[in-house]
């Protein structure tokens, strides 16, 4: 039998029992649909986390302080140490090759007061290179300049959210005064909104010169993080290693295990975040997969019934020369066709659900080619898997007994 004959036979058999075929297909439609929808939710989450990490800056390497080690071996926890200094930051900028820009920062939360309104937000002391490193753009006025840093000026740049909280939405607060920790700062600019990220909003911040933060707010000359921008993604690992070696040397540490700082690239953070969302995606897809198996059993059930109903027909086909393979292919093709149709409709349904979730719940979803290919091959696979047994049963029928079947 030719392939086209097989298709014709399959089409006739499926269309002869439209209601039953339709209900059987529905099981697969729901199974494939939920797998597609679940994967799209998972990948949407991964995607939005990735964009938010990328929006923090490109080719970014973050140096943070490590444990505060004392002689008693009591650890105060990672990030608690005040081991990084302005000198570290300047040396990195000077000595490590392929570094585009370095932005040290000293951040702490303070209560901010302006015109009788007040809020509590993150105050970031930093340098002029910060906007370039962190992908921040200026909306109004200007950012902290080199000169502000060297002269320890009391100037502040507001994030849009902070501006809204203190002065009201859409206002231009340039020249106004804000009080941070009892000290007056003059507002010189407002940054552009970047939207919230999974790691805190970069819109709800106040930027001031790092030297000012060290002298008037923190009272010490340490920095809380150093953000380093590499020239290209290719040199990231090299830059990461060079920074580690340089800081070990500067801090007089011989054993890298005892380092009092950590150097993390964006990829490291991205890796951790995506491994988390991947686990979630797999979990969701696995739950949806169970419904797919149930749908597959529905297909098998229908095929078993079809084999019994068409016993005489199988007997006749054998009598006029059909071989075992002809018969088993016919039933297998029918099962695969059913699951395939279910797969196509399921992809449409799943995409619809994903679209609906984005539209009504505002959650990011992403339908990837991968999940569509996966759905197709899984549905075809289920057709073969659950169609095989009924097809074999049909092929092995004894023609004489089949012809006599009542």
């Amino acid at each position, binding site marked *: *039998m*030719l392939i*086209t*004959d097989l298709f014709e036979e399959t089409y*006739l058999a499926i269309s*002869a029992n439209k209601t039953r075929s339709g209900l059987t297909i529905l099981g697969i439609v729901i199974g494939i649909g939920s797998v597609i929808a679940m994967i799209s939710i998972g990948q949407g989450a991964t995607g939005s986390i990735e964009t938010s990490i990328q929006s923090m800056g490109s080719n970014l390497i973050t140096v943070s302080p490590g444990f505060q080690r004392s002689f008693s071996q009591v650890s105060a926890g990672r990030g608690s140490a005040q081991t990084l200094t302005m000198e570290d930051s300047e040396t990195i900028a000077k000595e490590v090759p392929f570094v585009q820009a370095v932005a040290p920062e000293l951040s702490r939360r303070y209560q901010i007061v302006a015109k009788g309104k007040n809020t509590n937000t993150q105050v970031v002391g930093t340098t002029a290179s910060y906007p370039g490193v962190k992908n921040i753009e200026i909306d109004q006025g200007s950012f902290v300049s080199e000169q502000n840093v060297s002269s320890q000026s009391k100037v502040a740049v507001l994030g849009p959210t902070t501006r809204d909280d203190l002065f009201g939405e859409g206002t231009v607060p340039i020249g106004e005064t804000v009080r941070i920790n009892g000290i007056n700062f003059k507002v010189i600019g407002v940054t552009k909104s970047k939207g919230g990220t999974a790691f805190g909003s970069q819109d709800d911040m106040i930027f001031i010169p790092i030297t000012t933060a060290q002298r008037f707010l923190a009272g010490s000359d340490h920095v809380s993080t150093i953000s380093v921008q590499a020239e290209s993604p290719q040199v990231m690992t090299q830059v990461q290693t060079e920074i580690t070696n340089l800081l070990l040397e500067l801090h007089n540490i011989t054993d890298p295990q005892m380092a009092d700082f950590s150097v993390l690239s964006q990829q490291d953070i991205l890796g951790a975040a995506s491994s988390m969302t991947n686990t979630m995606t797999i979990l969701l897809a696995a739950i949806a997969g169970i419904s797919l198996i149930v749908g597959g059993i529905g297909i098998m059930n229908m095929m078993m019934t079809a084999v019994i109903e068409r016993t*005489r*027909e199988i*007997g*006749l*086909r*054998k*009598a*006029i*020369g*059909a*071989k*075992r*393979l*002809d018969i088993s292919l016919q039933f297998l093709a029918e099962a695969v066709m059913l699951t395939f149709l279910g797969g196509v409709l399921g992809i449409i349904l799943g995409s619809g659900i994903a679209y609906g979730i984005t539209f009504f719940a505002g959650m990011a979803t992403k339908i990837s080619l991968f999940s569509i290919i996966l759905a197709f091959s899984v549905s075809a696979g289920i057709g073969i898997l659950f169609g095989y047994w009924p097809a074999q049963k049909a092929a092995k029928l004894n*023609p*004489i007994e089949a*012809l006599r079947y009542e």
Partner: protein
Amino acid sequence: MIEVKNITKVYKSGDIETRVLKGISFSIKEGEFVAIIGPSGSGKSTLMHILGCLDTPTSGQYFFEGKDVSRLSDDELADIRKKEIGFVFQAFNLLPRATVLRNVVLPLAYANIPKGEREEIAKRALLSAGLDEKTFYRLSNQLSGGEMQRVAIARALVNNPTIVLADEPTGNLDSKTGEVVLETFKNLNKQGRTVILITHEKYIAEKAERTISLKDGEIIEDIINHRSKMVQQIKE
């Protein structure tokens, strides 16, 4: 063309052995019209299944055009059925919900005849089975019994088989339609085709040139029907 030598068929169910055929030998030449007659339980259906390569004998040999087919596998037998044998059943066994034409095209599909040639061949077979073109595109379950059986005959003929095997072809038909169907077989035989007819009714068997009578799994009589021979001779 067909030669069976001492074939037996034993069915086992549990410890009980049933000997359905007890050593049957005969041969059929090309162009013969043979009726195999016997009461139910005589083994005539089993014999037909073996002759039609649907089954193999327990012992003995069956030569089909000089080739021993008594020990072939399922798929090898299917090949012989496809090319050499046309079946006509008592219950017609047409595919319901399929058109007349499609029913007749089916054996051609299994024989891998190119798609473009199939309809032409099928239509010729239908015409020679005595159906007119009006019926070709009707669904097979909308036909009368006589028409159905003629569709089944057309299906049996469509692959141009060496022999046509008919198992009680008139069993489900009234006597008048039965006559027409029998006449169709006679015409086929006149065109030079070998026809083997299985029946339990004597008057049907007498239409054939030769009658092999079975009883309890053995041949009790193998005669040439002079009446039909004489009729033929007169015609000639």
